């Protein structure tokens, strides 16, 4: 059953709020002491509903969603793993949520200790020399990384204008580099789906500021020539940036720092199990090697004489990237995750991500084309292009999966795979769930031949059926408006 807009439940004078009495003396008539010209003329048409309306409305809305808590959610590149409930609890302690960023540092030693230890832990896992915990998301980390690559090169006396990015990269990579004024040079993947070393050699020159590499890449493949890539990049004094969104099968297995990576961002809302929140908040800590530390955004967490504090004094810093210190609430969740799984648990995460992805890959490989690789890391990319003959699109497959109670994989990405279906089961799913998903997908692939209509009209069992996206874009309706009577 669909749900009205909350505005459509509104009734004049109805209220859901309570407020304490105005206990301070107020001039006659409760009037404001502010001059007229500062005051709003037209009242904002916010909903006028009762508390029971608010509760029913949002409870019902929530039930219209698929989520990790209700469904298998193999959305490739997004690492939709289980979000531990305990981390929601411990991150809500009043000493964390009710703490002001401008309180004296002595008043905040608990949180500062967490941030410090968290940074140390990330250093240990990644083999980098320092982290900034400030980036609000992966793309934010990339942007800051690109600024640092600029600042570093300028400091070294060279202004460089190019960033090399593989064609398989996530869209944020070119977008972030471009926001720093760089020109983007795309490098094609080779037939194995990896960075083409020869092409890289041809492209690289002294105007390259950095190469943004995703490893494992968006095909789920480990860039096995990583050391060679690093060498080529470093030979021209460029930096090697790692998009570290795909670390779920790398924890405790291999460290970017050992591969010649100069900088990377991590997605706490992926690898480190913090909830995706319907699209955030996330956090994208940025790790760097020693020579790049001076350029990090201030402030940086430090420990001195057994107390923790913020260090602001970074003359070469690229500057401020966020008010205050970062998405602390997200970081506490990731911290809780890491200290609780600990050193024994860390490797298990990667192993599970690895085995789950390869198992699902194997279960499907006789039924669907998997253009690249013999094996995979945390995910793999299939292609549905052969179904075109039957008039079936990747979208049809995706929608039909919804009918079986599974969220769809990522579709049409990476761009280098035609009709891509990007499948990431994550480390927290059971063998049984993978089997159920595989069985459903195999069944759908059969349906594609025997009953294509059922796919084209899918989904059938969801709260709404397929949407008119063209209308949405052509005649954008982006808000409710009060109808004038």
């Amino acid at each position, binding site marked *: 059953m669909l749900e009205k807009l909350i505005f459509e439940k509104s009734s004049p004078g109805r209220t859901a709020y309570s407020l*304490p009495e105005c206990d301070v003396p107020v001039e006659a008539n409760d009037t404001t002491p502010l001059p007229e010209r500062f005051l709003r003329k037209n009242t904002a048409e916010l909903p006028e509903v009762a508390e029971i309306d608010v509760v029913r409305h949002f409870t019902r809305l929530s039930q219209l969603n698929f*989520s*990790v808590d209700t469904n298998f959610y193999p959305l490739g590149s997004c690492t939709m793993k289980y979000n531990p409930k305990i981390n929601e609890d411990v991150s809500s302690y009043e000493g964390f949520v009710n703490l002001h960023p401008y309180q004296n540092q002595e008043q905040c030693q608990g949180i500062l200790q967490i941030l410090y230890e968290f940074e140390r832990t990330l250093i240990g896992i990644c083999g980098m020399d320092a982290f900034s915990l400030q980036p609000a998301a992966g793309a934010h980390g990339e942007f800051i990384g690109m600024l640092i690559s600029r600042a570093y090169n300028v400091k070294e006396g060279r202004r460089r204008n190019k960033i090399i990015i593989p064609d398989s990269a996530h869209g944020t990579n070119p977008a972030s580099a471009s926001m720093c004024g760089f020109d983007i040079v795309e490098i094609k993947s080779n037939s194995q789906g990896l960075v083409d070393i020869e092409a890289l050699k041809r492209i690289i020159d002294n105007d390259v500021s950095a190469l943004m590499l995703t490893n494992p890449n968006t095909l789920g493949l480990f860039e096995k020539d990583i050391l060679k890539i690093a060498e080529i990049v470093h030979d021209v004094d460029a930096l090697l940036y790692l998009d570290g969104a795909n670390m779920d099968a790398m924890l405790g297995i291999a460290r970017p720092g050992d591969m010649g990576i100069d900088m990377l961002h991590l997605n706490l809302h992926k690898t480190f199990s913090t909830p*995706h*929140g319907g699209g*955030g908040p*996330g956090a994208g800590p940025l790790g760097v090697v020693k020579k790049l530390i001076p350029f990090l955004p201030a402030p940086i967490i430090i420990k001195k004489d057994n107390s923790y504090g913020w260090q602001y004094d970074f003359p070469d810093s690229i*500057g401020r990237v966020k008010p205050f210190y970062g998405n602390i609430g997200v970081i506490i969740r990731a911290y809780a995750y890491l200290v609780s799984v600990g050193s024994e648990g860390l490797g298990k995460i990667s192993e599970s991500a690895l085995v789950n992805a390869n198992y699902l890959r194997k279960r499907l490989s006789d039924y669907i084309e998997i253009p690249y690789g013999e094996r995979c890391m945390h995910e793999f990319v299939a292609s549905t292009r052969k179904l075109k003959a039957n008039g079936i699109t990747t979208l049809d497959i995706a929608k039909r999966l919804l009918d079986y109670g599974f969220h769809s994989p990522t579709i049409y990405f990476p761009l280098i795979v035609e009709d891509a279906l990007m499948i990431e089961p994550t480390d927290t799913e059971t063998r049984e769930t993978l089997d159920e998903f595989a069985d459903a997908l195999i069944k759908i692939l059969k349906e594609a031949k025997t009953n294509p209509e059922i796919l084209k009209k899918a*989904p059938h069992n969801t709260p709404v059926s397929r949407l008119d996206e063209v209308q949405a874009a052509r005649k954008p309706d982006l808000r409710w408006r009060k109808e004038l009577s």
Partner: protein
Amino acid sequence: MPVKINYTPNTESDIKLMLKEIGVNSIEDLLVDIPEGLLCKQINIPTGMSEMELKHSLKSLSDKNANLNKYTSYLGAGAYEHFVPSVVDHLSSRGEFYTCYTPYQPEVSQGTLQGIYEFQSMMCELLAMDIVNASMYDGASALAEAAVLAIRHKRKKNVLVSKTVHPEYRGVLSTYLQELDVKLIEIEMEDGITSVSDLESRIDNNTACVLIQTPNFFGCLEETEELVGLTHKNEALFVACVNSMSLGIIKPPGEYDADIAVGDIQALGNYINYGGPHAGFFAVNKEFMRKMPGRLAGATTDTKGRRAFTLTLQTREQHIRRAKATSNICTNQQLLALRTCIYLSTLGKAGMIDIGNLNIHKSHYAMDRLCELDGIEPLLNKPFFNEFAIKISDNCKIEELSRHLFESGIIGGLDLSHFYPDINNAMLLCVTETRSKEDIDELVLAVSNII
């Protein structure tokens, strides 16, 4: 035993079975693409623990912080202590809301999508603007992205920002613009608000936009009408950064013809969280719809003609437009926008007015009472919403005052010299609906005992 926390469900025998199906003998066989030397033996982090131990450990770290439930605080300056109605926590903590991702499959994401659409609608109402996006990282990045939009749209090189804008916001702005070949120029202030004459002297036809904040960093309300007039006369865009909590009472950007309105929604139903996560919003008038950053949800119909919601106008975004996108933003701050949506549904039309009035009355009472004390006077003489600055006589150093207040369970306001070195011994205080008269009287008494 011991049994540490472990979220990977498959047992050793599951894994054996799965490896067999995969056709390998061991997990190592899956790692052959990783150069031998790179495989690491042991990561040097502590061993794990159980849920019970985790709770104890985090509780004791939490207790090492002086939290705002235990202390009565007067800090504001971009992070505000407001009351969060219980329903906001209860509803936003439903797993279906916080364990899903960006609603790429609208048929199974109507909850999130309708929530975004309602959020956009409510924020449009509050701001009196045409279009608001689904959220930004925070108010500061929203401000910076507004400048970027203006630069691209106007193809001009000068960005003017008032010195009364939050210093950390200005810091972020400067970082975002540093590689875009533009000039960031600061406008002086006069008695706590943007100097109109200084703006006049700096604005010209190279100006892409003028950025101001109101109520500004000092809490003062800007003379927006004059500033907008001047800006538009020079064909630049006017960007207003506003305190979302003030908008039930204070004139919204749409009513003074701002071109872009930005700000933070932490105040509307979100906790301070030591400064994050907060969330920004980005509002424009129709004209800039296809130039704005961030996600947008729109209403459309499904194949059966039912109203339904979907992400739309995605051709602006990085996953489609890549290097030419309006912004690189991908993951935003959705859950906080949902909380704001629930918050605004709860406060509603009348509530946002009432709470605005409470903020005004309580802060003005506090200001009046404090300034009755010998040795305290208003730093500025301008209308304000819920923040104001006081000047403390030089006999009492501000650090000393803060330290003594803390001993009486009070967290004083912000030392302004931290951001404005030439403002000496002055404190910025914020007083919201969460402070009772009794609290304020205690503050006044404590201050009078110290100075």
